């Protein structure tokens, strides 16, 4: 009698546990479209350039992509030796909603040619253009590159957000984002337009290194003020950042 009772309890726990697992899976909020082609190593080529201390870019027109190293590391001195060179190297693509990044294989850089005398980089990280401001006005309007605007969003580490981790934002991911940014992954500002589409803007403040300053604000809603420095980057002074009321 007691044995049958206990068997019933055990069976109930097994079935109930599986049902609870299903419920918890279904109740989770949707995951973003981030993609990390883990295990797929491809060849990349272009001119390597730098903006700020932490942002290493590979330019090949188009597109222009940040280059980072494995783990929570932005780049290393070995890669910086190739700045302004046309380089070929191996890496893995990270991509989300049209924005992408390359995780380079360390020590795979080759520079078959002489340095490029005129790098296509600064002062604009991405080709100078107008950015359509959809955050602060009901009707999208072109915003001049140097016009001051305020944005509300969240500081994320660009590598995880674009796909290495999913989710790569929010409170649960905050410590990882802090570690990544501290290790040299470019900090970015996650914003949504009025249609609810998310995108990141790389945070820059050349020559000031933003990494230490942004750590205090990682993973929480904040309002920042500054100006667009190209279509995928935003110049801002962290001393002006505030938590929205």
């Amino acid at each position, binding site marked *: 009698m007691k044995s049958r009772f206990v068997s019933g309890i055990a069976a109930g726990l097994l079935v109930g546990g599986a049902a609870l697992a299903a419920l*918890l899976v279904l109740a989770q909020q949707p995951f973003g479209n981030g993609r990390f082609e883990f295990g797929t190593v491809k060849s990349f080529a272009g001119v390597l350039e730098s903006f700020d201390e932490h942002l290493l870019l590979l330019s090949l027109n188009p597109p222009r992509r940040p280059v980072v190293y494995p783990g929570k590391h932005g780049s290393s001195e070995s890669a910086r030796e190739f700045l302004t060179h046309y380089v070929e190297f191996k890496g893995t693509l990270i991509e989300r909603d049209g924005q992408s990044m390359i995780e380079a294989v360390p020590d795979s850089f080759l520079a078959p040619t002489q340095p490029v005398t005129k790098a296509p980089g600064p002062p604009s990280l991405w080709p100078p253009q107008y950015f359509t401001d959809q955050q602060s006005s009901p009707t999208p309007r072109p915003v001049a590159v140097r016009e001051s605007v305020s944005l509300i969003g969240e500081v994320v580490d660009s590598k995880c957000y674009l796909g290495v981790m999913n989710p790569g934002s929010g409170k649960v991911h905050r410590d990882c984002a802090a570690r990544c940014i*501290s290790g040299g992954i470019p900090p970015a500002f996650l914003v949504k337009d009025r249609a609810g589409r998310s995108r990141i803007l790389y945070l820059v403040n050349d020559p000031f290194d933003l990494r230490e300053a942004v750590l205090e604000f990682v993973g929480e809603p904040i309002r920042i003020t500054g100006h667009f420095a190209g279509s995928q980057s935003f110049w801002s002074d962290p001393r002006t950042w505030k938590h929205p009321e």
Partner: protein
Amino acid sequence: MSVHYQAVSWNPAKRTYDLVIAAGIAAYLLMFILLGIIVHPNATAETLIIRALGTLALLLIHVILSIGPLCRLDSRFLPLLYNRRHLGVAMFLVAAVHGVFSLIQFHGFGDVNPLVSLLTSNTRFSSLADFPFQLPGFLALIILFLMAATSHDFWLNTLTPRIWKSLHMMVYLAYALLIAHVSLGALQSETSPVLAGVLAAGLVSVTSLHVAAAVRERKLDVLPLPGADFMEVCDIAAIPENRAKVVTIGLERVAVFRYGDKISAISNVCAHQNGPLGEGKIIDGCVTCPWHGYQYLPESGASPPPFTEKVPSYRTRIVDGKVFVDPCALAPGTPVEPARIV
């Protein structure tokens, strides 16, 4: 019953218990991860594994904490109590894998030691919204490790039952830390009320079961009157043959056993692991603890030779078909003449 190290031995009942635990863990993880891959194809494998293990550990600690009060409310649950230690160790292992995966995922491969990162990445202790939620989980894992590491009888005997029991009562602190870990972390990132509802339901269930068990036992309490020597505890008919009725006299649990035409009373707390002697029965003339089979003579509370365990004994009387117990406990192992049923 010695202080020497003894290898853990498995009997068929324990094997069945462990197989059910393993099957349950496997079923949960498979359901969570496979369904997760289907419903959330963009989720990374590490995220699904971390979430599956974390939610499973939380489910298991709810089951573990519910077993005790359920057994006090309904003796049919007692077989679940028999091997609860294995369930506890399994729960720790699941939580530990969750913790290690999370440590690697969120703090590994960086510019500082992962443990240093865990303790220093977020120090906003004054803010509830920004509180470093991983720390409560880490502290809970340390407590669960101490409990799992000392779950063997060797540690029970080495630490003494009082210290061992105090250590293992810290499971309630670990539970509170885990609730804080989830409430200040995952629940702040997720938007579905289902997740908060499930956690609240678990918390309410565990609390309600403990309150219900306490209320039920309080009804059995017998408060000694000042100056009274013997307290009436029950009718003779209320005690099944070779079984006991457990009463609380003052702050002490007393197991009143009936065997043949005799009535004897000893402490309800086993000297081995504080098991409930009153929920056991008399086998071969000895009160036998339902947890691990430790035995005591009902008329003295002493284990039969060559064993040396002893529990306090109590004087008993029978008047007009009612059993009376002297509320003053005698020294452990003190022989007492049983009351005779005429």
